[in-house]
């Protein structure tokens, strides 16, 4: 079936004339209409535009004028990536009806590569969460078992790819939001180096941490998509000027001799299943010629606390733009300017968003700034230093993505701290700006997907994609 193919396979079929972009697009539309009512991954559908884009792609191809390998491939975007073709609402009441007048750089580059937009997919509200449960549109269910979460915040992205409703998706990762849902849904998700992919046109959560990235069925597909979106952007002052390598070529090299480290701190408190998965992965990689060492990341246990001071602080600044003036929800009840701000924000924003804005406001306020924000920034340096030290002796780090496989819907809604602990293995790399990839690996005893994570130094996402692709090819045999 067309919808089960990878982007690499679809690109080959398009090239050989075995199918058309329109046929592929219609296949996904049919599948979305059949399956998504129960999964709830798509929050805005753009079928008419998709068909137009597909037809335009087929016309280009008929004239030998394709834009590139991925011309004509249908994808979707997390609901925080601005696109002129479909609304962008950050899965929030605050932005209901918002239609961006411009495209995010990420989407613009994908359009210039000929990709087709099926729609926007679900996320936790303003990407704040680890389950997609804080979304205004309700939770996205895990396609492997609807009683379980898809993870978050890129739950819609992960679920739609896993359920064959899209060839790929663009998610965002600030504390693990690409990698954790990829792991929960059994797909591949890459968080690139901070600054590798432009954040222009992406609704911001925490500006020193946010990373847009590809989510797809395979590492090869992620490599193809990363080639399209990565690179310096004049509109994003934090985007890295370094040249973008040909990731799809880099992945073909074998990994014999690659040095892989396993952090000993990550093994404390691991459940047997997760420990077992890491052991199996280590065995596979050893069979492929990799060499393992035990390493130490001593400040690991402080990472979640650092994150939950810094991220809310940056959130409190980024969220201040939602005031009922230039866009978004405005309260009908306001009688003066102060009320326009406080009522619009009170009505338009959900609990988790408010929780984080207020945590950040407190951490940055007079009298508390040094003890919280400044302190966290210093511990962030120590966490980054841990990685710099370790990468002197290893090329890549192997770790779990998350303490376990997907949890049941409703299981972690009582206490916010429970949800915050989910991100312990992904947060450190966000703080240090490093790339990380989640690769599907094995199954939980209840049948749910499991995965492993690889981390690498800044600007080494090529190595992650290489190891990922080589592993996926090796395990296929």
């Amino acid at each position: 079936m067309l919808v089960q193919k990878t982007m690499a396979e679809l690109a080959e079929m398009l090239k050989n004339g075995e199918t058309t972009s329109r046929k592929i697009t219609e296949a996904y539309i049919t599948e979305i209409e059949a399956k998504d009512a129960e999964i709830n991954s798509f929050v805005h559908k753009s079928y008419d535009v998709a068909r137009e884009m597909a037809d335009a792609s087929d016309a280009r191809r008929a004239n030998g004028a394709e834009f590139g390998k991925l011309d004509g491939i249908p994808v979707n975007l997390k609901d925080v990536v601005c696109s002129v073709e479909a609304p962008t609402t950050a899965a929030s009441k605050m932005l209901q009806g918002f239609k961006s007048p411009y495209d995010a750089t990420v989407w613009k580059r994908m359009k210039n590569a000929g990709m087709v937009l099926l729609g926007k997919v679900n996320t936790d509200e303003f990407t704040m969460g680890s389950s997609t449960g804080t979304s205004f549109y309700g939770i996205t269910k895990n396609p492997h078992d609807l009683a379980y979460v898809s993870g978050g915040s890129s739950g819609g992205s992960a679920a739609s790819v896993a359920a064959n409703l899209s060839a790929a998706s663009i998610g965002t990762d600030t504390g693990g939001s690409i990698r954790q849902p990829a792991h929960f849904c059994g797909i591949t998700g890459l968080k690139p180096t901070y600054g590798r992919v432009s954040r222009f046109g992406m609704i911001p959560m925490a500006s020193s941490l946010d990373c847009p990235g590809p989510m797809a069925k395979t590492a090869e597909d992620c490599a193809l998509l990363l080639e399209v979106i990565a690179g310096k952007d004049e509109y994003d002052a934090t985007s890295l000027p370094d040249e973008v390598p040909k990731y799809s070529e880099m992945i073909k090299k074998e990994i014999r001799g690659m040095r892989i480290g396993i952090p000993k701190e990550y093994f404390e408190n691991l459940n047997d299943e997760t420990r077992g998965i890491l052991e199996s992965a280590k065995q596979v990689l050893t069979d492929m010629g990799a060499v393992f060492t035990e390493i130490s990341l001593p400040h690991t246990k402080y990472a979640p606390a650092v994150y939950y001071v810094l991220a809310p602080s940056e959130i409190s600044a980024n969220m201040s733009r939602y005031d009922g003036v230039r866009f978004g929800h405005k309260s009908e009840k306001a009688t003066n300017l102060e009320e326009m701000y406080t009522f619009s924000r009170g009505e338009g924003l959900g609990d988790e968003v408010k929780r984080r804005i207020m945590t950040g406001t407190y951490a940055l306020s007079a009298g508390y700034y040094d003890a919280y924000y400044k302190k966290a920034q210093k511990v962030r340096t120590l966490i980054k230093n841990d990685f710099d030290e370790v990468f002197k002796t290893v090329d890549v780090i192997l770790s779990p993505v998350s303490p376990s496989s997907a949890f049941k819907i409703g299981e972690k809604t009582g206490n916010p701290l429970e949800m915050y602990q989910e991100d312990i293995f992904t947060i450190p790399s966000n703080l240090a700006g490093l790339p990380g990839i989640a690769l599907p690996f094995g199954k939980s005893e209840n049948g749910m997907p499991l995965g492993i994570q690889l981390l690498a130094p800044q600007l080494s996402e090529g190595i992650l994609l290489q190891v990922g692709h080589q592993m996926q090819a090796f395990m296929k045999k």
Partner: protein
Amino acid sequence: MLTRQEVLHIAHLARIHLTEEEITLFQRDLSSILDWVSVLQEVDTENVPETSQVTGLQNVTRKGDEISVYGKEKELLAQSPNEIMDHQIRIPNIMD
């Protein structure tokens, strides 16, 4: 445990109106979050510089800042939930 006053002060700084229920909810939640993150106090950060960004980039400016016509003012103004008058957004009185 944060006092009710402190919660209201934070809410005011953040310009968010809280209902009575929310004041109680967030008083509890914020207190437990702030307790949880206070573990950072045990880390020795003497002489450790802060990391506010990880790219190492400095003074990034746009090359050749040429003036061009944006052309989408109408679309941008159309996003506002307020009345538009003379290319301006009309808002309530700032001063009484």
